[in-house]
C-alpha cells in the first residue's frame, strides 16, 4: 500500500511539471483547433462533391453536449472499480451534459438508455466507457445512429481490457485510470465531426490461392454461388497434400477416391479458371477491386486450349505420355518424396488434374526427343517457352496455401536421414498406398524386407519449446498414427505397431471410438516421448529409447522400422504470399486470422480470407469446414455488389498544400497523387485506396492533411486532456 501511495504522489508531481512544460504548447494548439472550423467551409466552397460528403458540420467546442455512459459489464468492470466515483467525476468535465451507467451497456435496454438520453438532452456526442472498441464499437455506433446522431459522433473509452482486467486488484488505481480514460474520450468527442462512409463497387470475381482440398472446396463453393473464380496453384496439378495420402481417419476412406471427384469438378466447372504451375506475382488495390498479376511459369507444354490459340487445331497435350517414355533425364519424384524416379518431362501421378505434362527446365537437357515423340499433330511441346504474366481483377481473395513437413532431421536424436529405416509419416503414406512406389507394400528402405515391429514416434518436433521444433500441437499426427497402426495390422499379419506417445489427442467426431478400435486390434501404446534412437549397424534394426512413464521404467525396444510423426510448419513461401496480400502472421508463423474465435476465416485486410492449414494445423474435416466458411465470407461482398469503406481517409486542405509531393512517396497504399487545381499543384486522395494510416498526415510539413476521425485538433485535445487533467 505504501508503495502505491508513493506512486500516486509521483504521478501528481510529474503532472504538475508537465503542466508547466505544456503550457506554451497549449496556446498553439488552440490556434490549430481553429483550423477545422475554417476547413470544411473552404472545402465546401471549393465545391468537389466528395469533399462535401466526407466532411460534415463541426460543433463549436462550446456548444458540444456530450453524454457519458459507463458500463459495469456485470462484474467485469464494476468488480474492480468504483463506478459511482467515475460517474461523479464525469459530471464535472467540460461539455458533459449527461452521465449514466448501466449493468450491460451493449444489451438492448442499455442501448435504449443511450437513445433516450440523446433525444431528451439534445446531445451532440456519445462516449461509452466499456470494453475494447474491437468488440463493441460497431454496436454503439449503431446505437448512436439510431438515436438520430451521425454514427461517427461516438467515442469509446476502454475501461475493461486496458483497465479493470489488468488492474483487477487495484481498485483505487483502476478508478483513477478510468477517470483519465473518460476525460480523454470526452475531449475528443467534443470535437468529432459527422462523417459519411463511402461505397465502392465490388468486382464479381474471386481468387483462391492454393488448390489443395481447402482451395478446391472454396473454389467449388464460390463457383456454385455463381462467382467467377480464379484458382491459382503453384504445383503442376491440384489436390495438394490430401492427394498424397492413402486412407483417411476415422472412416478409412481412400483419400484419392473421395478427392478425385472434387478434382474433376474443379477441372470441369465453367466458373472456375484453373491456373496450375502459376504463382501470384503482384497484388494491388483493395476490397472489391484487387488487381492481381499472376505469373504463369513456363511449363514447356501447351494445353489444347493454348495450342488452339496458337492456331494448332486439335493440338496440345492429351496426356498420352509418349514424351515421358523417350526422355533421357531421370530425377527423384518430389510427389513420392524422392522414393520413385521421374523424367524431366513428367506428371506427379497417374490421376493428375489437369492431365498436362510439365517440363522441369532445371534438369531438361533440351535434347528434343520429346518434341519428336509428341509428333507434328499435337505439337504440344515448346522447349523455348517463357514465363507469362496475366492480369485479373477480383473482388475478394482466399489464401489456402497449406503446409510443409518440418525438416525432422533437425532433431538429430531420432536419426532421420542418418538411419535408413527411420521414415516420416508422409513417406509411410506413400509406401502403404497402392499407387505409391512399392505398390502398397510397406518395406524397410535398407533391405526391402517387410517389418514385423514398427515404432511410431508421436509429437516428433511438435510441442517442443527448445527452439528447434515447433511449440504447437500439429493436431492430426495422433489420429493418422492410429490409422497407420491399423493399416499395418491389416496388411502385415503378425506385425505389431508400438505407439510412443505423450497424450493421445483424439478430439473429433468418432475419433475416440477409432482409438478404442485400434487398441482393440492390438496396437501397443507406450506413454513416453522417445529420447533417442540408435541403429544396429549390422541388422539396420533400431533401438528406441524412452521411459515407460506409466511403469516408471526405462525402455530399450528393438524394432525394424521407425515412423516419425513429424510436425508441420507453414509453407516456405508463406511470408512472400502474406506480404503480397498485406496479411499478418502469428508468433508461430501461421497466417493470422481477424479473431481466433469469432472471425477465424477473415484477416485484418478487408476482402482477404484464410482457408485450411495456412491459418493453423487442421485435419481434413476442419480444413473443409474452414474452406466453406471462407468461401461464404468471400462471397458476401460480391453478392452485396458494393462495400462500405470506413471514412477514416486523409483529405487535403488545399489552401495549405504547397504541392511538395513528399506525402505521395510516403503513402504505403499509393492512394495519393498530385493534381493541378485552379493553377496550383495540390495533393489529391483516392479515398477508396486510403486506409487512414496517418503516415502522410503526421509528416506533412505544412499541416495540410486532415485525417478524418483522427484529426490533429482531436488528438491534441486528447493529449491535453490527459496531461492537463481536464482543463481545456
Amino acid at each position, binding site marked *: 500500500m505504501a508503495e502505491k501511495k508513493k506512486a500516486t504522489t509521483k504521478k501528481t508531481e510529474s503532472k504538475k511539471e508537465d503542466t508547466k512544460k505544456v503550457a506554451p504548447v497549449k496556446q498553439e494548439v488552440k490556434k490549430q483547433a481553429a483550423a477545422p472550423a475554417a476547413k470544411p467551409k473552404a472545402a465546401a466552397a471549393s465545391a468537389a462533391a466528395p469533399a462535401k460528403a466526407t466532411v460534415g458540420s463541426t460543433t463549436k467546442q462550446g456548444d458540444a453536449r456530450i453524454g457519458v455512459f459507463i458500463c459495469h459489464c456485470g462484474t467485469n468492470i464494476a468488480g474492480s472499480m468504483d463506478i459511482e466515483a467515475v460517474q461523479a467525476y464525469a459530471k464535472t468535465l467540460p461539455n458533459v451534459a449527461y452521465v449514466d451507467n448501466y449493468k450491460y451497456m451493449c444489451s438492448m435496454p442499455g442501448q435504449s438508455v443511450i437513445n433516450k438520453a440523446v433525444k431528451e438532452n439534445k446531445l451532440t456526442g456519445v462516449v461509452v466507457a466499456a470494453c475494447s472498441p474491437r468488440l463493441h464499437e460497431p454496436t454503439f455506433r449503431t446505437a448512436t445512429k439510431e438515436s438520430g446522431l451521425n454514427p461517427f459522433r461516438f467515442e469509446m473509452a476502454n475501461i475493461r481490457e486496458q483497465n479493470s482486467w489488468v488492474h483487477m486488484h487495484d481498485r483505487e488505481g483502476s478508478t483513477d485510470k478510468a477517470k483519465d480514460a473518460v476525460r480523454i474520450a470526452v475531449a475528443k468527442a467534443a470535437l468529432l465531426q459527422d462523417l459519411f462512409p463511402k461505397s465502392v463497387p465490388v468486382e464479381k470475381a474471386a481468387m483462391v490461392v492454393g488448390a489443395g482440398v481447402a482451395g478446391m472446396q472454396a473454389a467449388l463453393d464460390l463457383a456454385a454461388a455463381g462467382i467467377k473464380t480464379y484458382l491459382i496453384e503453384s504445383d503442376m496439378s491440384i489436390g495438394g497434400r490430401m492427394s498424397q495420402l492413402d486412407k483417411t481417419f476415422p472412416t478409412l476412406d481412400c483419400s484419392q477416391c473421395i478427392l478425385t471427384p472434387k478434382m474433376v469438378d474443379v477441372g470441369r466447372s465453367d466458373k472456375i479458371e484453373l491456373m496450375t504451375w502459376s504463382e501470384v506475382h503482384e497484388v494491388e488495390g483493395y476490397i472489391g477491386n484487387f488487381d492481381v498479376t499472376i505469373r504463369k511459369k513456363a511449363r514447356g507444354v501447351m494445353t489444347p486450349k493454348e495450342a488452339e490459340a496458337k492456331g494448332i487445331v486439335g493440338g496440345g497435350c492429351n496426356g498420352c505420355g509418349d514424351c515421358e517414355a523417350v526422355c533421357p533425364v531421370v530425377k527423384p519424384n518430389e510427389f513420392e518424396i524422392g522414393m520413385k524416379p521421374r523424367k524431366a518431362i513428367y506428371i506427379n501421378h497417374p490421376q493428375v488434374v489437369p492431365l498436362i505434362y510439365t517440363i522441369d527446365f532445371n534438369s531438361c537437357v533440351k535434347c528434343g526427343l520429346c518434341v519428336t515423340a509428341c509428333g507434328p499433330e499435337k505439337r504440344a511441346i515448346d522447349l523455348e517457352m517463357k514465363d507469362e504474366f496475366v492480369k485479373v481483377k477480383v473482388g475478394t481473395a482466399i489464401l489456402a496455401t497449406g503446409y510443409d513437413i518440418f525438416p525432422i532431421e533437425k532433431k538429430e536424436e531420432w536419426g532421420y536421414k542418418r538411419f535408413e529405416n527411420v521414415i516420416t509419416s508422409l513417406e509411410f503414406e506413400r509406401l502403404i498406398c497402392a499407387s505409391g512406389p512399392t505398390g502398397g507394400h510397406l518395406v524397410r528402405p535398407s533391405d526391402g524386407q517387410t517389418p514385423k515391429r514398427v515404432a511410431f514416434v508421436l509429437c516428433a518436433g511438435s510441442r517442443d519449446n527448445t527452439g528447434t521444433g515447433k511449440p504447437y500441437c500439429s493436431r492430426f499426427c495422433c489420429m493418422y498414427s492410429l490409422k497407420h497402426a491399423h493399416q499395418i495390422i491389416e496388411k502385415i499379419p503378425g506385425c505389431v505397431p508400438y505407439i510412443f506417445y505423450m497424450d493421445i489427442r483424439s478430439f473429433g467426431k468418432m475419433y475416440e471410438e477409432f482409438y478404442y478400435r485400434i487398441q482393440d486390434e492390438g496396437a501397443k501404446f507406450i506413454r513416453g*516421448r522417445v529420447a*533417442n534412437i540408435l541403429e544396429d549397424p549390422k541388422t539396420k534394426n533400431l533401438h528406441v529409447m524412452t521411459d515407460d512413464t506409466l511403469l516408471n521404467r*526405462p525402455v530399450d525396444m528393438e524394432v525394424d522400422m521407425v515412423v516419425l510423426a513429424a510436425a508441420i510448419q507453414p509453407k516456405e513461401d508463406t511470408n512472400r504470399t502474406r506480404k503480397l496480400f498485406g496479411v499478418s502472421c502469428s508468433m508461430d508463423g501461421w497466417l493470422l486470422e481477424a479473431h481466433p474465435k469469432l472471425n477465424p476465416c477473415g484477416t485484418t485486410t478487408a476482402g482477404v480470407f484464410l482457408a485450411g492449414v495456412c491459418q493453423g494445423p487442421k485435419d481434413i474435416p476442419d480444413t473443409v469446414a474452414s474452406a466453406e466458411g471462407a468461401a461464404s465470407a468471400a462471397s458476401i461482398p460480391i453478392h452485396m455488389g458494393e462495400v462500405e469503406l470506413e471514412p477514416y481517409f486523409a483529405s487535403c486542405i488545399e489552401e495549405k498544400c504547397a504541392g511538395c509531393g513528399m506525402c505521395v512517396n510516403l503513402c504505403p497504399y499509393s492512394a495519393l497523387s498530385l493534381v493541378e487545381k485552379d493553377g496550383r499543384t495540390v495533393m489529391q486522395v483516392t479515398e477508396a485506396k486510403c486506409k487512414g494510416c496517418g503516415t502522410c498526415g503526421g509528416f506533412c510539413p505544412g499541416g495540410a492533411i486532415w485525417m478524418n476521425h483522427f484529426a490533429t485538433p482531436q488528438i491534441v485535445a486528447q493529449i491535453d486532456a490527459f496531461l492537463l487533467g481536464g482543463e481545456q
Partner: protein
Amino acid sequence: MIIMARTKGYPEALEKKLRDQRYYREDSNPDFTKNVKAISRTIPHMCYQCGTCTGSCPSAPRSSYRIRHFMRRAVLGLENEALTDPDLWLCTTCYSCSDRCPRDIIPTDVIMAMRNLAFKRDIVPVNFLKTVQAIYSSGHGVPNNDVNRAAREKLGLTRDPPTTHMYPEYIKGIQKILDHYKLKANADRIVKEREG
C-alpha cells in the same frame, strides 16, 4: 508392532506396498518448488512428464535413479520425499536429459539444486564428503596415482598434470575458497558423526 499384527509377518516388500503412499496437501511445500527454481535457474515447474529425461539417462537402466520422478517432485513441492531419496545422488551430470528436454528445462541443474538443499540439511552421502576432503588436500576430486602417471608417461605427457599436482603452492588458494563456504568443516563434521 501394530504393523506386524496387520501383515502377520509377511515379507518386508509387501509391508512396503501396504503402506499408505498417497500424498496429502501437507506433504507439498510450494516454497520447495520456488527454491529449486531459484537455485537451478531453470523452469522445473514446466515439466509435462514426457519421460525424455529418463529415456536419455545413462544411469536409469543401471540403477533405480529416475530423473522424471524428481522432476515430478519438484512440480508438486514434495520436499522431504525428494531430499531423503538416496537416488538423488546417482546423477552423473552428463546433461543428456538437458540436451533433449522438449520443454527446454535443464533437469541436471534441478538435481544439483536439490543436492544443495539436501546438503543444508546434512543429507549427503559420505563418498561425496570424501571428495571434498580430497579436493581440500590435493586440489583434485580424483588425485593422480601411479597407474595414471605411467599412462601419462607412455603418452608423452608429464607425470603430473599442470594443476595443483605440479604447482602445490596453489592448493592454499583452493583451501581458502572451501573454508570460506565452511565446506571442509561441514564435511569433516558429518563424516565424523557417521563414521565416529
